């Protein structure tokens, strides 16, 4: 056992895991507090015009809001840890099942988006860094700065206007499941994937460029050059390979950001994922659904960050030893 924890990588993983659990506990408290921070009575607000004294009592009792606060928290935390996130205020459906039903659509969109972003950002960022100060570097930097400044929903509408409404090449919105209709899924995922991917590519290009520039000025690269290695070998084996380590971090962060941040894109493209679900839940004041979605997305966010940190420590010994 002692030998196991003597390993620096396992100690690092243990520390990171503990940290993630502490943050997750905080997330749980915040998600629980959400419904109690609503000014007024959340059940009354959620019922709106459907209010009757009977419906009010039934929903209040079903959601456990008639019990003491501390009891409510431990009941909520205990249920959440076993995967029970309560029932929707709107239709009484179990929140966990609703969230899991929407998760694949968001994950598939996020993966397509991150792949498009990597396909653009890796070559653009590496080229820009290796041609620093040239016209092509300037064009790539200005383009990526421009991309960071474009609202994703505006880009989505312009892409729909061009590729769907004017040229008629792709559908304006909608979704087909990947497993039952892969062709239909591909046609429907291109425009939202492109919207998500182009914005992420703009951010990632800047990180790739910076990472390559930092490695290119490192001592081991100077040594490799002074040994007389061919420039192509120095670039591929010594610069790009090492620069990919920090790129891994930003890819993970971007993936996590996309998973929780595609709300507007999903609304524009009527993509039935978590983002659109959150939006509809906010509009309907469906607090258990909002709580569940917030908890799930924050957990995914923490999990991806944890995986990225561990991978980073595996490939870069300086991190785990620091």
């Amino acid at each position, binding site marked *: 056992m002692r030998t196991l924890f003597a390993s620096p990588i396992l100690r690092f993983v243990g520390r990171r895991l503990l940290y993630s659990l502490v943050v997750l506990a*905080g997330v749980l408290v915040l998600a629980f507090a959400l419904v109690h921070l609503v000014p007024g009575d959340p059940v009354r607000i959620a019922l709106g015009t459907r209010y009757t004294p009977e419906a009010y009592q039934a929903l209040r009792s079903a959601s456990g809001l008639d019990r003491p606060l501390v009891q409510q928290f431990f009941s909520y935390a205990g249920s959440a840890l076993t995967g029970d996130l309560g029932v929707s205020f709107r239709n009484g459906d179990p929140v966990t099942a609703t969230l899991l039903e929407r998760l694949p659509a968001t994950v598939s969109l996020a993966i397509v988006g991150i792949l498009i972003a990597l396909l653009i950002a890796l070559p653009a960022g590496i080229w820009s860094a290796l041609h620093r100060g040239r016209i092509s570097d300037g064009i790539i930097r200005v383009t990526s700065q421009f991309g960071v*400044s474009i609202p*994703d929903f*505006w880009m989505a509408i312009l892409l729909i206007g061009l590729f769907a*409404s004017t040229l008629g090449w792709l559908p304006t919105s909608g979704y087909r499941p990947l497993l039952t209709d892969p062709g239909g899924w591909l046609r429907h995922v291109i425009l939202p994937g492109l919207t998500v991917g182009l914005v992420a590519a703009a951010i990632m290009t800047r990180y790739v460029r910076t990472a390559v520039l930092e490695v290119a000025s490192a001592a081991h690269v100077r040594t490799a050059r002074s040994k007389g290695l061919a420039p192509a070998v120095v670039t591929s084996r010594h610069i790009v390979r090492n620069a990919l380590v920090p790129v891994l971090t930003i890819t993970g962060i971007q993936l996590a950001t996309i998973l*929780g941040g595609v*709300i*507007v894109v999903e609304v524009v493209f009527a993509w039935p994922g978590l983002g659109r679900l*959150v939006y509809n839940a*906010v509009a309907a004041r469906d607090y258990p659904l909002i709580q569940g979605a917030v908890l799930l997305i924050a957990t995914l966010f923490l999990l991806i960050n944890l995986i990225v940190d561990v991978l980073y420590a595996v490939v870069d010994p300086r991190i785990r030893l620091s």
Partner: protein
Amino acid sequence: MTDMPSGDNLRVSSWRLLLANPLTLASGVVLIAVAIAAGTARWIAPSGINDVDVPNALQPPSGAHWFGTDELGRDILSRVLVAMQASLQVSVVSVAFAVVVGVTVGVVAGYRGGWADIVFMRVVDVMFAFPVLLLALAIVAILGPGMTTTMLAIGIVFTPIFARVARASTLSVRTEPYVAVSRTMGTGHGFILSRHVLPNIAGPLIVQTSLSLAFAILSEAALSFLGLGIQPPHPSLGRMIFDSQGFVTLAWWMAVFPGAAIVVIVLAFNLLGDGLRDVLDPKQRTLAEARRNR
């Protein structure tokens, strides 16, 4: 003539360096022009923001309507100008909130250390576990949509980043010899914080403010696009883009001009932030000076 103190010299050379960067200079000019146009929108707008003129609906850009008209015949230029004012107002107020709260938390955590640092930074970590728009949406879900809620939501969302930047900078400043000397001389914490810490952590905070203003504009536009930000009849750039969805092929100007207004403001804040970083970050400053002297 006596030599200027070194602090003034640094300030003058910082300004020179900042103004020598054409992109930074252009961004500054654009932002001043946008601020003036937005500030005087009520007077310079050619029409009222809700002047309905159905016979002239969906008119393309012309001498009478520079940015064209929308589906109700309202002048898009007038609505863009007034919406820009609201956007700037929301972003400035929300970022000011984030700066005040975030810097206070970060400086206290970094300067005092101990339990204050642990508690404040764990709260910040929890807030960082939420994607920006999700957290803003959760706050809107609690308080209901509207301009004040939007300001508060964006302000809360951006607070953690200022807390982290302020804490990191304070940690490095508090170990500086001049702070230690000041402390041994019996100087009070308030004086040390205001005289030594805050001026020396201002650089990264100024850069972060510029970049956050850009993201705040984008966040406000996204919330308004979803119908959860600025509410009608007041125009907002995000909602104007939402309303243009049904007219993409019929009236491209309905989407293009409000979107272009957002891009111009956000791009200008981003470029200004980059320019400021070049001057205020010592590592980047050396590079910028080398480029200038080349």
